[in-house]
């Protein structure tokens, strides 16, 4: 073969690739798969259920009721002068989205080992489809939140809605990316050592208590504030609450910090993810 050196190949399979070769263009060529995966998740989830998507109303509704009773009436944690059901539902809506993204993406490799072992496609499609499917569920839960806001508006509650409402789409995107980043990082780490799965199951629950979901940041004593402030979700949750309910801390520099943490984490996790996806079938 005289000219093999000069021939152009469409694909070269090799053991080592650069850390920075993330093949995002390949991801784009599989966008139809992403769309179909989202559709599949949505259809498959409600096949043979009676209530269908209504289940998305019930879960936050009941959780809110429990929170009102436990944290509001019994523990008497203040809610920044926001009616308790609104306060909890608002925090829960965002928190649910984050934890659904995190939980859904963190078992990417293990849950899809069967299909990954049989056919190649960019593995990132799966976690991305989880994030998008959950965005649809977030939309449904958002309707519930809006309905409750309308109810309070009719009763005469003043929301002071202003320009801060523009934070909402920003916050949702950052929360989605953060959930994705943490989720795929964990999924990459669990392919060989399953210890992380055990950790995950309670770490997510504990993280909620380190996020202002059941309490406002203003209620936190000064000496713990720095600790809670390390959690990027803290600033995102506060800004989200401010945008919707008109009460909550919007600290631009700390939101900047959250965005930075999220983007760094995302870059690192995609790099690790694309390393692991090449050989995980040997260790999963």
């Amino acid at each position: 073969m005289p000219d093999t050196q000069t021939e152009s190949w469409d694909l070269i399979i090799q053991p080592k690739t650069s850390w920075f070769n993330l093949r995002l263009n390949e991801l784009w060529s599989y966008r139809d798969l992403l769309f179909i995966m989202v559709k599949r998740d949505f259809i498959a989830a409600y096949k043979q259920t009676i209530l269908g998507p209504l289940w998305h109303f019930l879960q936050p509704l009941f959780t809110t009721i429990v929170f009102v009773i436990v944290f509001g009436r019994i523990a008497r944690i203040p809610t920044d002068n926001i009616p308790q059901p609104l306060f909890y539902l608002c925090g829960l809506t965002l928190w649910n989205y984050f934890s659904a993204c995190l939980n859904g993406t963190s078992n990417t490799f293990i849950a899809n080992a069967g299909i990954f072992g049989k056919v190649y496609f960019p593995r990132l499609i799966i976690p991305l489809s989880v994030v998008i499917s959950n965005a649809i569920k977030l939309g449904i839960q958002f309707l519930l939140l809006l309905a409750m806001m309308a109810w309070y508006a009719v009763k005469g509650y003043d929301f002071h809605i202003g320009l801060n409402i523009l934070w909402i789409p920003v916050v949702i995107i950052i929360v989605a990316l953060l959930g994705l980043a943490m989720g795929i990082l964990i999924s990459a780490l669990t392919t060989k050592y399953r210890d992380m799965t055990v950790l995950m199951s309670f770490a997510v629950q504990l993280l909620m208590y380190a996020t202002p979901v059941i309490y406002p940041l203003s209620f936190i004593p000064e000496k713990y504030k720095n600790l809670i402030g390390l959690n990027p979700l803290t600033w995102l949750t506060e800004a989200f609450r401010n945008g919707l309910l008109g009460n909550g801390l919007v600290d631009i520099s700390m939101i900047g910090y959250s965005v930075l943490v999220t983007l760094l984490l995302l870059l690192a996790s995609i790099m690790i993810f694309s390393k692991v996806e090449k050989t995980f079938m040997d260790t999963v």
Partner: protein
Amino acid sequence: MSTVIQVSNLSKQYRLGQVGTGSLSHDINRLWHRAWGKEDPYLKIGEENNRETKGNSDYVWALKDINFDIEQGDRVGIIGRNGAGKSTLLKILSRTTSPTSGSVKIKGKVASLLEVGTGFHPDLSGRDNVFLNGAILGMSRKDIKSRFDEIVDFAGVERYIDTPVKRYSSGMYVRLAFAVAAYLESDILIVDEVLAVGDHEFQKRCLGKLSDVSNKEGRTVIFVSHNMDAVLRLCSHAIILNNGKINGYSNTNNIIDTYLKSDFGTTSLRRWTDDSAPGNQVVRLKEVVVHDEDYNRNETFNITKRVGITMTYEVLQEDVIFTHGINLYNSQGLNILNSHDIVSELRKFPRKKGVYSSTSWIPGNFLAEGTVVVGVAIFNHKPFHIHFHELDAVAFNVVDSFAGDAARGDYVEGFPGIVRPILNWETEKSN
């Protein structure tokens, strides 16, 4: 013709055993070496992949320094016994795992069908699954839409296309899944033999479609199988893998000799040395071997040749009378025949203690091609008593001859039937 796949020095190492705390220390050691720019210490060890010999190392090479080129439009069969490295090669080519060293260079789009219906969701309708499966295999919605009618037509499931696939019969399921794959837009198609399942008629259509894909559309097909027969029928070239290395690569007409000569023997010999040997205090089995006319052990036989099955056993009690028998089963588990010794002289008289060998001969041009599993037994008729009966004792393969000297004559297509004797035909003109 141009080279579309070039495999150079391809190797793949696997670690045996469990992932546990030991693997963490190996990982750290490996990282340490890499950080200092040294070679991975575990790549130097590792042994040839041979299941029979117990290795000394936890690392084995499933593939070791494989080199080959595939030309455009070729239909290449990859054959070898279980554990030869076929699946590993397939996984690397289809990018579900990465090689340890070496490279594969590919021109054009690769579609791999390692399993029918990958990603089929039971709750979705046939229509949704066609789109889902097509997208997983790398097709765009537009491509799938333009070929949708052809796919449904080939699968023959028009009536059920809006029914969830969990209500499909397994045949319909396989047909639909294969159809998606067969109509896939790709330059190179990698197919596992599991595709050749389903009823006979559909199997013929699948193989026919694969031939079309290569002949008419100029696409390259790689077909992986442990069945020489299927490879002979479908492929223009064949690669024989053995213990992670290439034993032969040639066009299929020439490769059959290599295949017959190569040692595929894993199960044509069984030996028992300890107390686990089949038997009782009267007689104990020591060895069962399948061999050719010259008593050379072999696992693969030309259909025209005689096959000998010899069992060696030790008689532990003086003066017992017994007889020997064999059962033959084909790969579908169908009992081809049973035979017990009604010929030898020794069977009539009480046996002295000692080691004996009994051989039975299966004539050439009698068994059909395929795998034959052999069971052996020693027993008494009156009173009826079984000393041992070892089903699945050994196995061997029968490969049909395409030289015109077997029952198939010059006919090269699939040839059904449990046995394949050459019968005598007499034809007379009656008026």
